[in-house]
């Protein structure tokens, strides 16, 4: 199973070179991999339907108990078949859609990596593994949305999607860690048995919220829905695959997967259902306002995802069955409709539905694909979508709760809202079918002609599958949807899907829905102005918040920088010293008992000399009128300190200090000539201020040393290192053994920092602005900040 997951990544590596060899046949060739994976996983259908679970496990990071656990059960099987099945068609479609594009080899590589990551998400049985694959889908989605990287809006949309889903992913990771803490296991399949433990834990609510944020960002739920319409900047194969059929379903998958362990509580129902309902209605409302084919479909996808989330929140047996069925239905028809939208765009050069018409004459096969998909979307028998809609109504009508906050009218309300959302979906289905294909042929930017097979094959095949599964409804109920629903529900259930139930409330609701949807479509020119009249998105809304937030980052960073990076060394030193005084001083005052015994005994003669020498040095530094003299006096202070180290048994420290003092004096002497003669820059007030800071720092350090020396003379660390450094590290010099062995990692980091700092000094001194054009090809050595610095001058 590991190979099945990784094969996509491996093939992705070679996709560009394969493309160089096979050119326009690459799509057909590369589609063999998802097709093979589809068949491989399809081979497990019977096993899974019998209630078995296939799993494999490989140790990965032993130390952290992270394992590559994979598991195939009903839920993952349904997802993986959608991913590889639609994936096969998309790879073929991409070959036709992006024919002749210079970077298409890279596109295949991204697409296959995404597929592999998505397969990894749904097969992972370990929380960390799931997270890693989850983030991989975000990254590949970023690369795919930003595929046309020379367009500004394409890059901005890619970033928006990455930041949103990436932040959600981090929240999810935090939730996973809490989940593992609460349950004691990283294995997802073991979580179910710990459901009681998790739900009674104090961490339950944080876990639920964090996991939900992960799922909601990925599945474009309100208030994180804003990235999905922007993601339509991606080439259409990407929209069809990632942003309707698979990746946006990852959030739905996650909630479905977590439902047995986190679900069936008041909090779950409240949070998940309400977010789902809001998203469902908002998506439906916004989809009716659009004219661009892809944007219509994007908002309608948001609406459908909201419906899926709502059903998972409702969490009854029927609701889960409906969710699993609708998951399949939606992937089939929405993937097909996106492919159709791409084909139309490709052949006519426009996606504006008002500018399209009569295309069925030129593109009959595309029209057939559209029709099948739209019928399934509208829930017209005998397509699978009809059964899906019936089941959704059955779920919302049902009332099997004894949960406190559920009021009696809630099922009726939920059903009513679902009917409205479905009406919008039907209107959308009409908009994308009737407007472009029926009526008279209109003038378009490109003269439309028959679409090549790669562009219509996927849509038609998905439509046929939707039709076949609807006609033979016992197949999905037994082999696909049934096993998946059992996993999510956590119990055996008997799912029987069929086209005809007799005259039920659901059938009547279906008829009302279809009539309402057609009415909306018929009256669309009257309805749109009303919809446009309410446009809250223009004033408030998460998208605006996101854009403003991103814009605010650089300006606030600049303000922050101007305060803390004034370009004046004396401020930096003041800030560092003040921080030290406040942090350490606070701890000393608040938490530490000050030593009372301050009597000094046994002072030797030479121990007195050194402080006196240091004090004389300090006096000279303060009152000297010559730079050279000041530098020499500073050196005296440093050497005095080194002598203290010598006397109190720290020879390493003393040697280092001596060497550093020497080099410092040399450095000072080297730059001395460039400095102006010593004049007093600072005002009297500034000098008093600096003096107070200096005295406070001195007092603080003195107190600190007194406190430390007053501690009991037990030094477990010294003893440990004294013993361990010879036994384990074969050296007697504890200091050096710590540096190169026990804390070798720190040292490695430090010398890297040193090296970078030296390069920085070198660049500052050697590469003058005038020499930039000669030495390096950098056009503008940041002139902006320089101007601003004067603003902060005292």
């Amino acid at each position, binding site marked *: 199973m590991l190979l099945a997951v990784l094969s996509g990544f491996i093939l992705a590596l070679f996709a560009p070179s394969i493309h160089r060899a096979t050119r326009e046949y690459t799509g057909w060739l590369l589609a063999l991999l998802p097709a093979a994976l589809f068949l491989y996983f399809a081979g497990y259908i019977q096993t899974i339907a019998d209630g078995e679970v296939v799993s494999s496990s490989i140790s990965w990071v032993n130390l952290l108990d992270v394992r590559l656990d994979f598991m195939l059960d009903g839920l993952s099987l349904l997802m993986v078949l959608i991913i590889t099945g639609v994936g096969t068609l998309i790879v073929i479609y991409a070959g036709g859609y992006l024919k002749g594009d210079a970077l298409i080899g890279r596109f295949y590589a991204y697409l296959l990596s995404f597929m592999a990551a998505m397969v990894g998400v749904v097969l992972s049985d370990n929380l960390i593994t799931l997270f890693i694959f989850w983030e991989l889908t975000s990254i590949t989605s970023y690369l795919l949305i930003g595929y046309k990287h020379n367009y500004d809006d394409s890059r901005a949309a890619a970033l928006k999607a990455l930041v949103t889903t990436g932040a959600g992913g981090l929240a999810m990771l935090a939730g996973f860690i809490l989940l593992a803490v609460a349950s004691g296991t990283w294995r997802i399949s073991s979580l179910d048995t710990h459901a009681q433990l998790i739900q009674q834990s104090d961490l339950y609510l944080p876990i639920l919220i964090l996991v939900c944020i992960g799922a909601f960002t990925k599945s474009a739920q309100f208030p994180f829905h804003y990235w999905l319409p922007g993601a339509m900047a991606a080439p259409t194969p990407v929209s069809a695959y990632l942003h309707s059929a698979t990746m946006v379903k990852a959030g739905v998958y996650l909630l479905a997967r977590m439902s047995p362990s986190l679900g069936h509580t008041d909090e779950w129902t409240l949070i998940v259902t309400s977010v789902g309902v809001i998203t469902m209605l908002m998506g439906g409302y916004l989809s009716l306002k659009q004219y661009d084919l892809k944007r219509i479909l994007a908002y309608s996808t948001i609406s459908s995802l909201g419906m899926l989330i709502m059903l998972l929140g409702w969490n009854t047996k029927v609701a889960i069955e409906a969710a699993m069925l609708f998951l399949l239905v939606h992937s089939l028809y929405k993937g097909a409709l996106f492919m159709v939208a791409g084909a139309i765009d490709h052949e006519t050069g426009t996606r504006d539905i008002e500018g399209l018409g009569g295309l069925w004459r030129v593109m009959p096969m595309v029209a057939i694909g559209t029709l099948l998909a739209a019928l399934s979307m509208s829930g017209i028998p005998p397509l699978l979508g009809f059964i899906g809609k019936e089941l959704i109504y059955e779920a919302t009508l049902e009332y099997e709760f004894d949960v406190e906050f559920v009021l009696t009218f809630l099922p009726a309300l939920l059903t009513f809202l679902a009917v409205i959302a479905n009406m919008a979906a039907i209107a959308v289905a009409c908009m994308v079918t009737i407007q472009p294909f029926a009526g008279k042929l209109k003038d378009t930017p490109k003269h439309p002609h028959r679409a090549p097979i790669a562009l219509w094959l996927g849509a038609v095949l998905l439509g046929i599958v939707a039709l076949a599964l609807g006609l033979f409804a016992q197949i999905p109920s037994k082999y696909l949807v049934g096993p998946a629903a059992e996993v999510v529900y956590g119990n055996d259930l008997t799912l029987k899907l069929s086209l005809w139930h007799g005259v039920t409330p659901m059938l009547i609701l279906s008829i009302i829905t279809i009539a309402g949807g057609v009415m909306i479509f018929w009256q669309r020119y009257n309805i749109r102005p009303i919809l446009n009249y309410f446009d809250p998105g223009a004033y408030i809304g998460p998208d605006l918040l996101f854009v403003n937030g991103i814009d605010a980052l650089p300006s606030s960073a600049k303000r922050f920088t101007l305060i803390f990076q004034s370009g004046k060394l004396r401020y930096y030193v003041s800030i560092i010293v003040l921080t030290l005084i406040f942090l350490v001083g606070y701890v000393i005052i608040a938490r530490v008992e000050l030593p009372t015994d301050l009597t000094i005994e046994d002072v030797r003669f030479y121990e007195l000399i050194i402080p006196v020498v240091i004090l004389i040095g300090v006096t000279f530094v303060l009152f000297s009128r010559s730079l050279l003299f000041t530098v020499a006096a500073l050196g005296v202070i440093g050497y005095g300190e080194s002598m203290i180290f010598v006397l109190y048994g720290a*020879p*390493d420290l003393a*040697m*280092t200090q001596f*060497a*550093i003092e*020497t*080099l410092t004096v*040399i*450095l000072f*002497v*080297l*730059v001395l*000539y*460039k400095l102006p003669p010593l004049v007093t820059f600072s005002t009297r007030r500034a000098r008093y201020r600096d003096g107070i800071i200096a005295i406070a720092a001195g007092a603080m350090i003195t107190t600190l040393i007194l406190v430390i020396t007053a501690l009991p003379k037990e030094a477990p660390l010294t003893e440990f290192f004294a013993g361990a450094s010879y036994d384990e*590290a*074969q*050296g*007697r*010099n504890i*200091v*050096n*053994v710590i*540096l*190169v*062995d026990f804390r*070798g*990692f720190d*040292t*490695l980091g430090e*010398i*890297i920092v*040193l*090296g970078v*700092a*030296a*390069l920085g*000094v*070198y660049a500052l*001194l*050697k590469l003058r602005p005038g020499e930039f054009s000669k030495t390096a090809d950098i056009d503008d050595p940041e002139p902006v900040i320089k101007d601003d610095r004067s603003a902060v001058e005292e």
Partner: protein
Amino acid sequence: MRSLILKTATRLLLPLMLLFSVFVLIRGHNEPGGGFIAGLVAASAFALYAIAYGVNRAEDALHISTINMIGGGLLIAAVSAAFPLLVGDPFFTILWLPFDLPIVGKAGTAFTFDAGVYLVVIGVTLTIIFAMAETEED
């Protein structure tokens, strides 16, 4: 500033200080010393040379550029840290030769790592000193 006394003394002092720095480096594992101190000692030797003879002569005497020295030192340190991976031990395990070498005594990746630190410290210090001294000469 280029006094004859300083020049003569430096010519004698440079090899002595370098020898001393290597000595400090090698004894570091058991006695006070180590790569960091040794690097500072060696750097002061060359700094002295630069003061006496000028930066260009000092750079010639060094034979390799200070930037390359930083890079080489980092490389040696990183390789010493990563070498145990080849024999299946975790990153930064210290491996020892089974026998003692002449002069150095016990030798292992701790020593080569320290030698890397030594080179980086020399390189960093001299890069800064030479850069400052050169701008002064302009």
